[in-house]
């Protein structure tokens, strides 16, 4: 599972404003911010809903273009993102709709950010919503649980290594 990611942008203030507006329908806002002198020479901002999981830094743009997709639980939120992202100055890269080549209920919209990065918001639920997305069957959830148990020790080892590296 992805914890957070980030990219360098060419105009920090402009991109921060664009993402804040485009992702507002998802409950995203700027949650954390560091001035250049505290963030390795470039300002940084972390956006998120419950934790900052999407980071912007100055000094870009990141090249070549990246792709990032955010998950929502209703198709109406995909539509709201598309509208907000275009209103904030984004360029259309694919209107809200089903992308059946991924799966039958894959409903996404694509907008290019101020640097041309491909930003998507996707809903995996059928229209009207559901308790769980179709792709997560009882069997796959069970398998995921046992896989999580199996890999728990490995995760700890990785965390330890990261700690050592920090110092």
């Amino acid at each position, binding site marked *: 599972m*992805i914890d957070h990611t980030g990219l360098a942008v060419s105009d920090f203030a402009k991109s921060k404003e664009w993402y804040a507006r485009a992702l507002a329908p998802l409950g995203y806002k700027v949650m954390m911010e560091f001035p250049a002198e505290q963030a390795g020479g470039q300002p940084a901002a972390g956006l998120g809903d419950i934790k900052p999981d999407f980071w912007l830094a100055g000094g870009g743009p990141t090249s070549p273009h990246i792709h*990032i997709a955010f998950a929502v639980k209703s198709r109406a939120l995909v539509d709201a993102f598309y509208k907000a992202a275009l209103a904030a100055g984004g360029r259309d890269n694919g209107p809200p709709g089903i992308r059946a080549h991924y799966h039958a209920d894959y409903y996404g919209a694509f907008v290019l950010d101020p640097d041309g990065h491909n930003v998507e918001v996707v809903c995996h639920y059928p229209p009207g919503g559901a308790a769980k997305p179709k792709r997560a069957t009882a069997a796959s959830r069970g398998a995921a649980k046992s896989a999580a148990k199996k890999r728990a020790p490995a995760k700890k080892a990785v965390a330890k290594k990261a700690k050592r590296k920090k110092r």
Partner: protein
Amino acid sequence: MIDHAGLDVGDYLASRAFYAAALAPLGYGVKAELPAEPPGAPADQTANF
């Protein structure tokens, strides 16, 4: 919440092998692979990375 992310790489096969090996302890594997040709389908996208 991030659903998935992707990036273009210089050497697709080398990077594919690197990520598969590096993320194997997390239970990650190549879950989906798209051909290069269809419109807008980057060849390097896996299930959520």
